[in-house]
């Protein structure tokens, strides 16, 4: 009895110490950031203001939070860890596996009926927002995520410049369509080929690099492409971008209000929603193509060689695998899907500029891949839906205005909230949402492989 009481005491003292330390660190970090504020006064001079109230309330929140964490939450978590497996837990596990098995088909079905659902529930007016801003936007990132997943998730090559291939695809479509009048269906494969050509061009010099060095060079490549797009004004029109890009037609029938337009031909009332829905199905088909090809490739020797390369490059070489070519194919195929997505992006927007191809895009796609679980298709799709869908939903955080007053702009806090969300996910699922690996072939039964054994590559 005596000893337990004593230990309790020690724990409290320790917790208070930790809370004080956390509060002190917060104070030190936030003193210059929040404690002081410079405001220009009526004479346009900068005046130093102090915000002690705000500063100390944040410090107090952190301190009390750390205290609660140490005293209440941490012991509970520790207790949960030692709790034996109950029947309820095993039942939950079987439920999870059932959900896991049916989630993929369900998600595919939902993606197919989604525009119909939106139109029938909310009419044409809501379709523009929900199909265009959510559906198409998410699917573009799903496709980019799946494309980058080949390079990062399967082959284990850290590519921080994936947006370069997206840009090559978009500009290929925009320039060739505007200058030569080729149709979307000719330019789509052409954009893919051009992107994979650039992928190989980048690949040749850099693939002898490993790990961090590869990441740095790919990052630089992404920037080079963007800066060339900005400065090659004669060709790309620089910062002003390219407007009036021809939109894709429904197998030759344009989505216009005229007599030969889509609506008139099919005897429907004209609305721009048809084009949106068409674009939705187009990007859905492209995303499915990416997924299908990736699934096929994983079963082919080249796909197995990618994964083997991620596991151990030297062993690959000892088995007679040409690692340079294998890496190049990963780069080229990943880049090709980036190019497809890029040309779709240009066709959908009708306007592109270098602004759309900043490093932030690469980082977003890479976060989607890492968050989803490298190598996992479903994980990447879920992460893209969460990440992009969440970003879009946060544009509508108007209720926060009622809490923080009308001058509060909720969209500015998207990135903060996202950073927070990512930290949480990385703490609890460091290898991504779906971290297990499913073998490409099996003799008797397919057993999933724990993420502890699967390597992350980057070599």
């Amino acid at each position: 009895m005596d000893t337990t009481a004593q230990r309790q005491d020690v724990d409290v003292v320790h917790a208070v110490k930790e809370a004080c330390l956390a509060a002190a660190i917060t104070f030190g970090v936030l003193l210059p950031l929040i404690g002081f504020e410079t405001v220009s006064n009526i004479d346009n001079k900068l005046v130093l203001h102090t915000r002690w109230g705000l500063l100390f309330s944040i410090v107090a929140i952190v301190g009390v939070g750390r205290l609660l964490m140490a005293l209440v939450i941490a012991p509970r978590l520790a207790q949960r860890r030692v709790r034996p497996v109950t029947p309820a837990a095993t039942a939950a596990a079987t439920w999870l596996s059932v959900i896991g098995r049916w989630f993929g088909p369900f998600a595919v079905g939902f993606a197919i009926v989604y525009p119909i659902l939106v139109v029938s529930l909310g009419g044409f007016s809501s379709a523009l927002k929900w199909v265009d801003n959510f559906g198409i936007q998410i699917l573009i990132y799903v496709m980019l995520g799946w494309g980058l997943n080949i390079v990062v998730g399967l082959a284990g090559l850290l590519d921080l410049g994936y947006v370069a291939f997206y840009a090559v695809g978009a500009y290929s479509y925009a320039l060739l369509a505007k200058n030569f009048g080729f149709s979307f269906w000719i330019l789509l494969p052409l954009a893919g080929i051009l992107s994979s050509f650039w992928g190989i061009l980048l690949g040749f010099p850099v693939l002898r690099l490993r790990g961090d060095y590869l990441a740095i060079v790919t990052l630089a490549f992404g920037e080079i492409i963007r800066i060339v797009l900005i400065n090659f004004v004669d060709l790309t029109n620089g910062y002003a971008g390219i407007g009036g890009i021809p939109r894709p037609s429904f197998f030759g029938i344009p989505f216009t209000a005229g007599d030969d337009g889509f609506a008139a031909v099919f005897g429907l009332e004209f609305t721009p929603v048809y084009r949106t829905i068409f674009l939705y199905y187009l990007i859905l088909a492209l995303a499915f193509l990416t997924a299908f090809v990736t699934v096929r490739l994983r079963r082919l020797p080249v796909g197995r060689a990618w994964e083997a390369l991620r596991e151990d490059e030297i062993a690959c070489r000892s088995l007679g695998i040409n690692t340079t070519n294998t890496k190049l194919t990963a780069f080229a195929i990943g880049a090709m899907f980036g190019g497809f997505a890029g040309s779709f992006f240009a066709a959908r927007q009708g306007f592109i500029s270098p602004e759309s191809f900043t490093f932030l895009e690469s980082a977003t796609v890479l976060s989607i891949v890492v968050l989803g679980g490298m190598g996992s298709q479903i994980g990447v799709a879920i992460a893209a839906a969460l990440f992009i869908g969440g970003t879009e939903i946060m544009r509508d955080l108007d209720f926060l205005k009622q809490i923080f007053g009308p001058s509060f702009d909720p969209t500015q806090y998207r990135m903060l909230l996202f950073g927070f969300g990512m930290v949480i996910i990385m703490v609890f699922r460091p290898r991504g949402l779906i971290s297990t690996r499913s073998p490409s072939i099996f003799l008797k039964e397919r057993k999933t492989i724990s993420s502890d054994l699967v390597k992350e590559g980057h070599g």
Partner: protein
Amino acid sequence: MAGRGEPLLKVEHLTMRFGGLVAVDNLSWQARERDITALIGPNGAGKTTVFNCITGFYKPTEGRIALRHGDPAIWDELESLTDRGKRHLTAATGSLFQLERMPDYLVTQQARVARTFQNIRLFAGMTVLENLMVAQHNSLMLASGYTLLGVLGIPSYGIAERAAIDVAREWLNRVGLIDRADDPAGDLPYGAQRRLEIARAMCTDPVLLCLDEPAAGLNPRESAELNELLLSIRDQFNLSILLIEHDMSVVMEISDHVIVLDYGVKISDGTPEEIRNDPKVIAAYLGVADEEVEKVEAEVGL
């Protein structure tokens, strides 16, 4: 005994320098067809460096490493191959390869030399079966039409894949891992990982198998099983085996020919019997000069 064939591999005047360090110095030896040739020596003698030179992981500073397929008469062409500066030469009855001119993956792909590693290098996150499928990469790559036809799903790839699975299944039976085919390789116990690595190397269909300390970390029973495995695959596949080993029970029992290295120089070359009685070898292993061997032997009671 088996072996006693014609030379399969000729290593001539091999020198490997790393900056000022001479790891291998003007080393010449031959490995005969169907022989188990053991490369032994104290730690740091340069054994693994020789292996890395043979398998193309290192480019030797000097010297020639030549390998033959088919008719031994092709050895007469070696000088002309060297003079022409080509990597390999193919005649109707056989071919010659100059391994020091080839990149590592071609040494396995074309010259058919397979290897294992001192620190096991399996694809830990892939299943046992997948490991063996990766080893058959080149033949499957051809069957999948270099991926292009495979993506379209041609049936001939399915046939080739099933044949590759059969090869893998046969090897899994042989090394006793068939029940664990669908488990990740990283989950296997140490001895099984060693056997799997040998099976994986054999799946590349080699003529020369280079094993870097295959018995390291095995218990006596496991290393006896390893001996049997090596002898049986040598006899069944007409294979030549090159072996780095510290475990003298393995070396003395199964090898036909032993080469002893010390400080990058060959100090002895012969049958296990000859090596066992060579005072130079004993001196190298005991770490004393030749003259003192008898004295030290008397001290340790040999």
